[in-house]
């Protein structure tokens, strides 16, 4: 019965128990309004988490991707305003490419100088944020200036409904983009050579090199992938909240990393799955959002996230130790 021993199953069970408990404390949790809202909150953190998952499977860690996301978002929106561009597709391509280019920068440093990814990405994150705020500007592009086609794009809903109080709500179509990206990530991690090379490199870098994987290519792919997803998610976030704030996402990387760890990925590399990450993201978002409907003071949010990170890592550490014996 291997399915019961898989970490995804355990996470799913914990998730269900937590949902039932929260629902008992406040039945409003189960309202369609709240569920749609929760799914919507999954999109941005989830897309970024897919990138972090791939980095963590390769045995690395990335704390710079939020800086890349904000740079991609702000530069793209500023560029659109400057050129008066009115499309949707091209800006997202540009934002993705900005993130990808910055990710390549990470890969270059990590591979060429063999430095610990945490320290490199601390540096690159600070460089990108500093340059963006210092040279490009600190002013927020508000809804009155924000390109309307981006807002309209992010407003598309799959289902529309009206709540008992008469307000309209819907399930955002952006969830399809998130799930589509998750499917693509899952497929390439499982079935392509580059995907297998990431697992191989994360499990044992030296062994991966000796069996003939081009580890430079693997690392380049990993960090570019994380950067590209962050860039894309950055612009999507701007479109969904109707503003481009160059100070956005400060400290958000911790939430994303927490979600990925919660999803069963190991920081030592070689372990992790897309399904686990989807569950981890949902769990983190649900707990954070539900603090409000459980009437817990919002000042406790950070403590709760911290406890979740420590708890989840303690569990994975315990699991990995058992495997070693």
């Amino acid at each position, binding site marked *: 019965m291997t399915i019961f021993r898989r970490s995804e199953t355990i996470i799913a069970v914990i998730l269900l128990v937590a949902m039932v408990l929260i629902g008992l404390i406040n039945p409003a949790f189960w309202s369609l309004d709240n569920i749609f809202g929760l799914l919507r909150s999954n999109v941005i953190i989830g897309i970024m988490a897919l990138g972090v998952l791939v980095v963590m499977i390769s045995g690395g860690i990335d704390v710079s991707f939020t800086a890349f996301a904000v740079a991609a978002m702000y530069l793209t929106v500023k560029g659109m305003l400057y050129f008066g561009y009115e499309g949707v597709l091209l800006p997202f391509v540009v934002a993705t490419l900005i993130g990808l280019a910055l990710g390549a920068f990470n890969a270059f440093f990590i591979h060429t100088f063999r430095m610990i990814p945490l320290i490199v990405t601390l540096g690159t994150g600070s*460089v990108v*944020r*500093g340059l963006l705020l*210092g040279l490009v500007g600190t002013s927020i592009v508000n809804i009155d200036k924000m390109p309307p086609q981006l807002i309209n794009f992010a407003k598309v809903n799959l289902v529309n409904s009206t709540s008992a109080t008469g307000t309209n709500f819907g399930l955002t179509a952006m969830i399809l983009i998130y799930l589509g990206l998750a499917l693509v990530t899952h497929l390439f991690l499982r079935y392509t050579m580059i995907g297998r090379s990431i697992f191989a490199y994360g499990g044992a870098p030296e062994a991966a090199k000796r069996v003939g994987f081009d580890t430079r290519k693997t690392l380049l792919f990993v960090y570019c992938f994380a950067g590209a997803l962050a860039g894309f998610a950055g612009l999507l976030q701007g479109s969904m909240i109707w503003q481009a704030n160059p100070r956005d996402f400060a400290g958000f990387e911790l939430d994303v990393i927490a979600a990925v760890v919660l999803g069963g990925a190991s920081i*030592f590399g070689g372990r992790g799955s897309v399904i686990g990450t989807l569950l981890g993201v949902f769990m983190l978002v649900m707990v954070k959002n539900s603090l409000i409907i459980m009437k817990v003071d919002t000042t406790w949010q*950070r403590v709760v996230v*911290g406890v979740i990170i420590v708890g989840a890592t*303690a569990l994975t550490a315990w699991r990995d130790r058992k495997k070693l014996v």
Partner: protein
Amino acid sequence: MSDSSIAKRILGQDRNILQLIAITILVFALMSWLNPDKFLRYYNFESITYIMPELGILAIAMMIAMLTGGIDLSVVGIANLAGILAGVFFHSVIVGTDQSTGMILLYTGLGILMALGIGLLAGLLNGFLISKLRITPILATLGTGQIFTGLAVVLTGGPAITGFPDGWNFIGNGKIIGVATPFVLFVIVAGAVAVLLTRTTFGVNLMLIGTNPKAAVFAGLRKDRMILYSYMLTGLLAAVAGVILSGRTNAAKSDYGASYLLQAVLIAVLGGTNPAGGKGRVLGVSIALIALMLLSSGFQILRFSNHLIDFIWGGFLLIVIALNAFRNTDR
């Protein structure tokens, strides 16, 4: 071990220190040349001696965590929590009581004890998670850092706590025989840590564990306990930095010194600490600290925005990584 290899080892270490001194002189010359009239003032250097210590102590704390191949991302959280806890304590006892000097001194002393105590406790938690539960230092301290900062938010509700007693103010802004109190504290802390790391069993054990954890265990070193102690020391030092920070600004807030984390890592790495463990000297970290303080003070005089200074710190970190990599391939 032959004489020549010992000589080479000392030379190797000295080369690192020499390189750092060269960087410092270079930065000093560059800044003096860029701001001839403002940089070379006594006032400028005096203000550096007030701002430098809190960051320096955090960098030394970071170095200690790195000696065993770890890292402590919660230092800034611990520092703020320590300052805030003391602030909350003062608010609860001093308001409404008579302000006699003796009582104020007593309360200040108690406040310091509380701040340092929470630092030790926080370090104990980190050390326990890392050495006993075997959580990777990055994730353990990432999580506890959130917890400490979160508790600081819960204690203050968000805004800064102000109104520390005079004794507290003295720690951050006073002078002892013409020298800034924080600077005196920094010299004492740096000296004590240097002695602890080079002249005691604890320090030597840490270096050995960092160089080769497996060999250290087989050699009979109590690795877990040593790592636990090292994180307690890191927590204690972070709390000292927190006391100095809140004393200097006469306030404590949950998000003070957010950029200190990157800067502490940078100074530790620039000072010749190997993040993979086994190598690090207080002297190196101190010289790196001076170089970077001169750099950032010079850019501030040039009216660079804080964002650009963040950029320069980050860029410096990347350049140092590249330089270290080239130096290591030389050998």
